[in-house]
């Protein structure tokens, strides 16, 4: 009954971290999720922790995350996700949006709400 917790680690070819020290995106609505990205020295790799009530899709999570990290060349980031039944397409979309937010320039951040 308890929540399902997954951990992954991936390393992209030319890893690059995010601009902000940390960044948060999304709401854990039904069929949705939130993403917290934290800049962290992880030898170029990305560590991911996912907490979700959903079971039986761990391999799909792994594939979606790997594809995202490799295609975005993300590295040295710790990602935590709280999920509530997001479909793979929503997961991919939210990851892209979260990354765009996390890569805004710091001066932009001050301006930013």
């Amino acid at each position, binding site marked *: 009954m308890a929540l399902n917790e997954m951990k992954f680690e991936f390393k992209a070819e030319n890893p690059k971290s995010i601009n902000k020290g940390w960044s948060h995106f999304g709401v854990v609505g039904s069929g949705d999720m939130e993403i917290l990205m934290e800049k962290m020295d992880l030898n170029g790799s990305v560590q991911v922790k996912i907490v979700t009530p959903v079971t039986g899709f761990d391999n799909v999570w792994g594939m979606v995350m790997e594809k995202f990290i490799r295609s975005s060349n993300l590295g040295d980031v710790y990602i935590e996700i709280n999920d509530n039944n997001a*479909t793979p*397409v*929503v997961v991919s979309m939210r990851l892209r949006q979260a990354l765009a937010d996390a890569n805004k320039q710091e001066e932009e951040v001050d301006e930013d709400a």
Partner: protein
Amino acid sequence: MEQENVKVWDTLKRDKEERIGQVKNLVKEGKVVAAKDTVALLEGVIKPGDKVNLEGNNQKQADFLADCLCKVDPKKIYDLHMVQSVIALKSHLDVFEKGIAKKLDYSFSGTQAGRLAEFVKDGKLELGSIHTYLELFARYYADLVPRVALVVAFEADKEGNLYTGFNTEDTPVIVEATAFKQGIVIAQVNKIVDKVTRVDIPAGWIDFVIESPKPFYIEPLFTRDPALITDTQVLMAMMAIKGVYGEYGVQSLNHGLGFFTAAIELLLPTYGEELGLKGKICSYFALNPHPTMIPAIESGWVKNMHCFGGELGMEEYVSARSDVFFIGPDGTLRSNRAYSQAAGHYAMDMFIGGTLQIDKYGNSSTATANRISGFGGAPNMGCDAKGRRHSSEAWLKCGKEYGLQEELIGNLPRGKKLVVQMQETFKEKLEPTFVEELDAWKLQKNANLDMPPIMIYSDDLTHIITEVGIAYVHKCTDMKEKMAAIRAVAGYTEIGMQADEKETEALRKKGIVKTPEDLGIDVSRANRSMLAAKNIKELVEWSGGLYNPPAKFVNW
């Protein structure tokens, strides 16, 4: 020579006269029977074993007559064979539970689909066939002629002229079949008036009219609140507009009901306009008056829209747009399901809609294991019209691309209707859309059907749109290639995970599979801000206050 051998050729007529004779005392004036005498009327004119049509579809319902039919004495009236478009109301199945009816031929069931399956399983109901609307209507003129039809209208006069107006829907096709085969037609109406707004059904075809205690029920089935459209649906709508509508120049079409097509409708004045497609696509529709069409209509996209039925709240708006809709001299819409279905089948270049499941071969179904929901009209639209002989740009282009054309007819040019299914690879609660085997097979076993109910067969299907991409499956030259194309857009479902990267690459090169990137769509733009209206209130504003949304959609 011998008197006794003279064949009687008007037994039906005599039988009708005899039945009507039995209820003469119930008729007050003209053809009017009081609501309180309805059960007595039904007991007088219906005989055991009759084929009875109870009007109702996914919009209007002869609900009062349905309730009254449940109240007849099952000792007097039993074994009825119900022939009707939908099983929508509780009463539609109560007549079986009470032993009044025995057999059913129908087309579509919504909320009662689960109970219907139970009834079939428990032997409470003998299921004839599940039809498409057009098929069922056709059988009213062949082997399923109703002996008694219980229909519904807005107004009647005392002589029996009916005004069915905005929600004409199935009434003409039912009444014509019944009345001209010496059957009996009873109409419940909201109001008996001195002069009907317009004669939709002439008095001569009607035997009795009853003013029902409450106006008949109408379900606003085609209203989609734009507030519930998701970003993913916007993305897929953009893909559809660019990769299918624009690609083929689709001018005449039908939209299924659902949020995908609602998103498309709301993107026409924004994204469609931006792509310069106005005038080049979406000029002619066979479609119910969807409220989400208002922005496109107001922006001048639509030349012509013929409606299967009405949609609650759209009455005033439709009346005020007679250049677009089919409006009578009285100023109100006349819908007609049979004609609209015919238009949908023969005159439309494309059908596009959502579905529940698609199997690895490309067959799709909305059936679940324990619900007999039937078909409605979608398969009439969602199939290639083999009798079609007129041509159009979109139809010809699709035929030209058809990978099996030569195999089937040699070197002749022939068009093909675009039949498009749209669905995310996973639905809510992570139910996969793409499956090894459709639940329709389970339903076939559970309900003991002759065959699994398929909404759209793979040989009619031309395009599948998911968030991953569009599969132009009609371009495939064999089933093997088609299955690969399906896998390529099936995402992380079990089916999709069997996709081979190289194979998918090859399909992309051939233009059989196109991703959003291949289509040149900027995915980051795919969000709700693209919608021409973001909620119901904005639809009201687009309509200049002419659209009056039903109470259940008024969230202000």
